[in-house]
């Protein structure tokens, strides 16, 4: 490539600013969208990449087989650390816990920090180095801790806080205080980590209760987040076996009751397994509970889908550019032929076109990058992730690389056309025509563009309508007057303060009632599965909801049979009355709900760490209440009366929900002045189950809009080219008396054929995609497949609108002038 080639490219762009703007902007938008989506995908795939040798760091997970249907958790007994360190190939084993959140008072306000208590080896495992101070000091001394730079700036307005002493406590409800100094300042962990923190402290921090310190440093069966680094080539099976054995032989494991051992059979009390830290973000099998560290998890299928969409949009933009360039090359055939006459070989021509294309793609890359930067804040909010790190030098380099690849790739077809230009035909004045094959290829590319837009539009609408359907689906009660909040960590509904809060709140005129439950309806933070059985029959694993006696009354739920809990009849902690749902009644073998009434059931419970079966009696059958999302099949549910260990409160508003919320805030601040009340309408709890779907729908809508614009432009260019190509024909037809509307039909036919072919291609694929998406739901909106019709109409209308101007130009063509030129 020579400088001359770029100079010529620049002059070509300047000669036709309209064409140039459309080319650069079209490609720029495609690149911008691609950068955002690929940047997001990279962000997801780079989770925990900041950890040195991250591919060889593993999270130890466990599953409690004593709890029926228990999921995997990304925590494990701390006693496994010592065992891990004995395995050849294990170079580091450490752990961290989040049970001890430091709370600090700043400017008269208590702030709870994202704190981790870390064991020896953690800093090395994570590759942490202090920017200022001594990290070792901070993590080992009883009067020291470490803080991140941004946390310091947020709290104190400056990162120059080394040596500052602070009064710490463990929570807003904890009365113990301790003075500690900031002994080290660390860089903030990246946003894409499953181990976020604002402060780090060691177990020796004086604020840590002795009992907890001993558990952390001893061979405890308490759970923590364990990390193990192995050398490459180390057998993970061998490590897992050692850890499993260590747990199986632990004193606590040996003490399980014989009945439990019998029920376990060959299974371990807890299954232990290793999982790559790099895969943690996409690990959907990991469950969370109210003690878990709050981290984002992603869906690798969705991320892969977003990458596909990014590349699709880029391909559409590239196709547009190739179409425009091809038309231009056809019109430059005379120039190309002359260059060949003067001695240009194919290589020289290819380099020239590559240079022109590179020039456009580089300008488009800059445009795309600027657009991506401008759109980043909105995109971050849309994805609900902190994506500020996307503007890294590395990603800029990738963007440039993408631009270069695009430039070289989009030059191939125009260069190919140039190779085929016959110089001898130029002498005979027979140039400026495009081969039939080339025309067909461009039409085929336009079909691809319109298909993509139609398919995306269909799928987007399908996802949107299903998400809407799911959010609006009735949960079995009217949630509009209900507000939900949790007690502060460490508090339970049986404690004195929470009882005082509930009593005070129930006195407020804005509040009609307060309900206690183990978890909010529609949320799966807390789960309790147990076994129930009828005498002489197989056991049934059932999901148990712990609720206060007024639960059904305040939720406005009427029984399907018998009665539901009644505060005038039932008392808290009464272990006998049981309410089950219709599914449970059926699965327990009752022919009808009525038949189940008054029947006794054996209910497995744990008393003093020993499993026992207690007798409960069915007092009523509850209708279906949607505890889970529409993605899960409803199962058997039992309701037991709360025993004071629960943490979730639901407030029913007597009038306006806003007034009730205000009342709750006022009462809360009297009982927990140093803790922030996080209260939400019950409806929002449900909507949170579909937050990802709603987000996906919005992202798809944006992508569809861009694809539509690109496709519309493609149709416009095609129509313009068709009119230009057929100018003589149109002029002759008019000379012979063809009416304007028939001329319009000529253009419409060409565009109509594109739309028809696109529909034939796109609709079946979109239908398949919608069907697969809907298959993840147990209930589906009846509107989903109407999305196909709607998208077909919308895309067709867009394409028709795009072609309308050219049809008008053709209709208004003056035959004499056209034939003269």
């Amino acid at each position, binding site marked *: 490539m020579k400088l001359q080639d770029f100079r010529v490219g620049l*002059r*070509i762009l300047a000669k036709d600013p309209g064409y140039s703007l459309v080319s650069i902007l079209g490609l720029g938008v495609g690149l911008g969208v691609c950068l955002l989506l690929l940047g997001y995908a990279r962000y997801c795939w780079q989770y925990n990449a900041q950890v040195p040798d991250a591919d060889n760091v593993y999270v130890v997970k466990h599953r409690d087989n004593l709890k029926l249907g228990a999921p995997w958790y990304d925590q494990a007994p701390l006693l496994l650390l010592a065992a891990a360190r004995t395995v050849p190939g294990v170079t580091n084993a450490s752990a961290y816990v989040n049970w001890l959140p430091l709370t600090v008072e700043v400017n008269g306000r208590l702030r709870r920090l994202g704190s981790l208590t870390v064991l020896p080896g953690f800093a090395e495992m994570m590759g942490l180095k202090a920017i200022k101070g001594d990290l070792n000091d901070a993590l080992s001394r009883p009067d020291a801790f470490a803080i991140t730079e941004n946390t310091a700036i947020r709290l104190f307005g400056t990162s120059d806080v080394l040596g500052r002493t602070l009064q710490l406590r463990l929570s807003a409800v904890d009365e113990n205080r301790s003075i500690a100094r900031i002994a080290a300042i660390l860089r903030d962990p990246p946003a894409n980590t499953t181990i976020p923190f604002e402060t780090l402290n060691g177990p020796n921090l004086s604020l840590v209760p002795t009992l907890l310190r001993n558990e952390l440093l001893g061979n405890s069966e308490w759970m923590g987040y364990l990390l193990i680094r192995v050398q490459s080539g180390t057998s993970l099976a061998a490590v897992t076996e050692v850890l499993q054995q260590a747990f199986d032989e632990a004193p606590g494991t040996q003490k399980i009751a014989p009945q439990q051992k019998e029920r376990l059979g060959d299974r371990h009390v807890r299954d232990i397994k290793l999982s790559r830290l790099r895969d943690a973000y996409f690990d959907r099998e990991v469950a969370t509970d109210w003690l878990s560290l709050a981290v984002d998890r992603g869906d690798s299928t969705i991320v892969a889908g977003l990458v596909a969409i990014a590349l699709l949009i880029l391909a559409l933009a590239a196709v547009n550019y190739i179409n425009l360039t091809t038309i231009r090359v056809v019109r430059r055939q005379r120039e190309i032929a002359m*260059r060949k006459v003067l*001695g*240009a070989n194919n290589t020289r021509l290819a380099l020239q076109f590559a240079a022109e294309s590179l020039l456009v793609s580089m300008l488009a890359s800059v445009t795309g990058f600027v657009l991506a930067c401008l759109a980043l804040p909105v995109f971050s909010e849309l994805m609900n992730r902190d994506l500020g790190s996307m503007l890294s030098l590395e990603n800029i380099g990738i963007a440039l690389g993408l631009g270069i690849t695009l430039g070289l790739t989009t030059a191939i077809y125009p260069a190919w056309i140039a190779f085929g230009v016959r*110089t001898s035909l130029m*002498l*005979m004045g027979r140039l400026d025509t495009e081969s039939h094959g080339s025309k067909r290829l461009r039409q085929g590319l336009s079909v691809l563009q319109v298909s993509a837009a139609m398919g995306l539009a269909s799928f987007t609408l399908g996802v949107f309508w299903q998400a809407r359907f799911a959010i609006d689906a009735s949960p079995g009660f009217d949630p509009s007057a209900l507000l939900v909040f949790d007690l502060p960590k460490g508090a339970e509904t049986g404690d004195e303060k929470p009882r005082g809060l509930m009593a005070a709140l129930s006195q407020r005129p804005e509040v009609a009632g307060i309900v206690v439950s183990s978890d909010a309806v529609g949320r799966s933070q807390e789960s309790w599965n147990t076994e129930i059985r009828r005498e002489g029959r197989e056991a049934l694993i059932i999901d148990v909801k712990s609720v206060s006696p007024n639960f059904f009354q305040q939720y406005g739920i009427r029984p399907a049979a018998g009665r539901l809990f009644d505060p005038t009849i039932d008392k808290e902690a009464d272990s006998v009355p049981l309410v089950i749902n219709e599914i449970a009644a059926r699965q327990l073998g009752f022919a009808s709900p009525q038949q189940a009434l008054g029947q006794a059931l054996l209910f497995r419970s744990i008393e003093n760490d020993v499993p026992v079966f207690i007798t409960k009696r069915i007092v009523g059958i509850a209708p279906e209440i949607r505890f889970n999302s529409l993605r899960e099949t409803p199962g058997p549910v039992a309701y037991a009366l709360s025993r004071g260990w629960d943490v979730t409160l639901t407030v029913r508003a007597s009038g306006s929900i806003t007034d009730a919320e205000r009342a709750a805030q006022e009462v809360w601040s009297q009982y927990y002045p140093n803790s922030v009340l996080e209260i939400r309408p019950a409806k929002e709890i449900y909507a949170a189950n579909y937050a990802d779907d709603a987000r996906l729908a919005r992202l798809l809508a944006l992508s569809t809009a861009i694809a539509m614009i690109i496709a519309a432009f493609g149709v416009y260019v095609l129509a313009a080219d068709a009119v230009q190509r057929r100018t003589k024909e149109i002029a002759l037809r008019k000379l012979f008396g063809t009416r304007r509307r028939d001329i319009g039909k000529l253009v419409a036919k060409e565009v109509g054929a594109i739309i028809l072919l696109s529909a034939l291609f796109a609709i079946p694929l979109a239908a398949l995609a919608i069907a697969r998406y809907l298959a993840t739901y147990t209930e589906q909106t009846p509107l989903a497949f109407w999305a196909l019709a709607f998208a077909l109409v919308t895309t067709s209308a867009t394409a028709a609108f795009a072609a309308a101007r050219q049809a008008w130009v053709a209709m208004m063509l003056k035959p004499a002038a056209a034939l003269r030129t």
Partner: protein
Amino acid sequence: MLKLVNTTKKFTGGDVVTTALNNINLEIKAGEYVAVTGPSGCGKSTLLSILGLLDAPDDGEYWFHGQNVAAWSEVRLSELRRGRIGFIFQSFNLIEELSVDENVELAMEYASVPARERRERVAEMLDKLGVAHRAKHRPSQLSGGQQQRVAIARALVNKPAVLLADEPTGNLDTAHGEEVMRILQQINDEGTTIVMVTHSPAHAARASRTVGLLDGAIAELATTAAAT
């Protein structure tokens, strides 16, 4: 220098086969000034494209400087053509995105002439043809006569042995046409072989020999008064 022996060229379009040149035998010696005449569609441009190595005959031989190039590939023909043959066209065929001096320089770029030498020769040629003062202008800013002079400059800048002109005065008025013919004569006097396609009997008479084509065959060969 250039010799066609039983040369035939056909074009196929769908089911129709057109014989553009039919068994042509023609020899052009070095330094000759040959005019090719004939009605539209008789094969003049096809003859010129074969002589100029832009196309290959389907049958027969074409001896270019002692080599039979009839069966050569396009790539080989292109390499042979580079720097040896100059072309002038009726519609000038200057590249609009390049300035006058860049258009002239383009021929040397493809012939891998060093940059300094290119600049010197461009300046010399533009000066010789009286368009040096328009060096930085774009072709569309020149008159027809000036554009054709730039095209001639481009054709001659590599000092080709042969100059092929396809109706060089076809788009020019009489005065400018005369000017171009005078330049061609001067070029021929300096030793360059010229083959010119023309519809003008007056311009054909300026050549030393006329070749008349009709339906793809040579109908007439004549030595003109200018030769004598």
